[in-house]
């Protein structure tokens, strides 16, 4: 039986957000096959619950919410399994570069390989990873990210802040290991 024009139009619009959903699924699952399964299931569910989508609201955020809820249900079990990041204080990479007199500090970032940045993002706990994906990679506003994640805006901000601290910590460790920066004299990861 042919699909209704309304359903087809809805599906076509939803598919314009496929790259965002696929990237998000890939970063969350870290596996292309699982990412495709997750995205396909999310789209099927979206069509099933098409009536709950309010026209004029952010479809990308709505679709991402469906996808990430499936991820947590299917791949992560209980949400309590996720590790939360503590506030680790300063921005490690920036502070260390400044201490070492590397100016401008941002120039060092140009020497960090994209694959290492992806690796650092994928090492973040999923609750923090998904905020970085939405805000930094996909350009969501805090409000839209909060809608997609089902949390208050303040939670988006605190998770994002801690995720960025952790990213700097990971990138600093990589920069030391690869000789981009000298590192602490005692060889320890700075606190």
């Amino acid at each position, binding site marked *: 039986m042919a699909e209704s024009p309304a359903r087809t139009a809805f599906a076509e619009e939803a*598919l314009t957000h496929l790259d965002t959903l696929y990237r998000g699924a890939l970063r969350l699952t870290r596996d292309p096959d699982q990412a495709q399964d997750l995205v396909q299931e999310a789209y099927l569910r979206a069509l099933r619950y098409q009536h709950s989508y309010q026209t004029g609201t952010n479809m990308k955020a709505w679709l991402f919410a469906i996808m990430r809820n499936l991820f947590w249900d299917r791949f992560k079990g209980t949400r309590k399994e996720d590790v939360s990041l503590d506030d680790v204080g300063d921005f490690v990479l920036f502070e260390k570069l400044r201490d070492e007199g590397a100016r*401008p*500090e941002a120039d060092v970032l140009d020497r960090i390989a994209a694959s290492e940045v992806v690796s650092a993002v994928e090492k973040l706990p999923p609750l923090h990873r998904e905020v970085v994906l939405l805000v*930094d990679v996909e350009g969501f*506003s805090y409000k839209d990210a909060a809608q997609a994640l089902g949390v208050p805006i303040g939670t988006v901000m605190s998770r*994002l*802040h801690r995720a960025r601290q952790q990213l700097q910590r990971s990138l600093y460790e990589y920069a030391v290991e690869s000789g981009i920066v000298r590192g602490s004299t005692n060889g320890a990861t700075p606190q």
Partner: protein
Amino acid sequence: MNCPDCKDKLDRFVDRELNNTEVLELQLHLEGCPECSDQYEFQAHLKRLVKHSCDCDAAPAAFREKLRQILT
């Protein structure tokens, strides 16, 4: 605005989440504070680096077509 206030607002500045008044206050501080200005440049640069590193994965064409067949 002092440096601690500026640091508190840097995330929101980088993410374009401040209102116009806050943006002007922060820009004024950055113009007179090389340290905060450096930190802003670094955070903005890092945000761009994360985006460019992670947004190059597009859905495979075959997968897109498969979904289109299933959904429409």
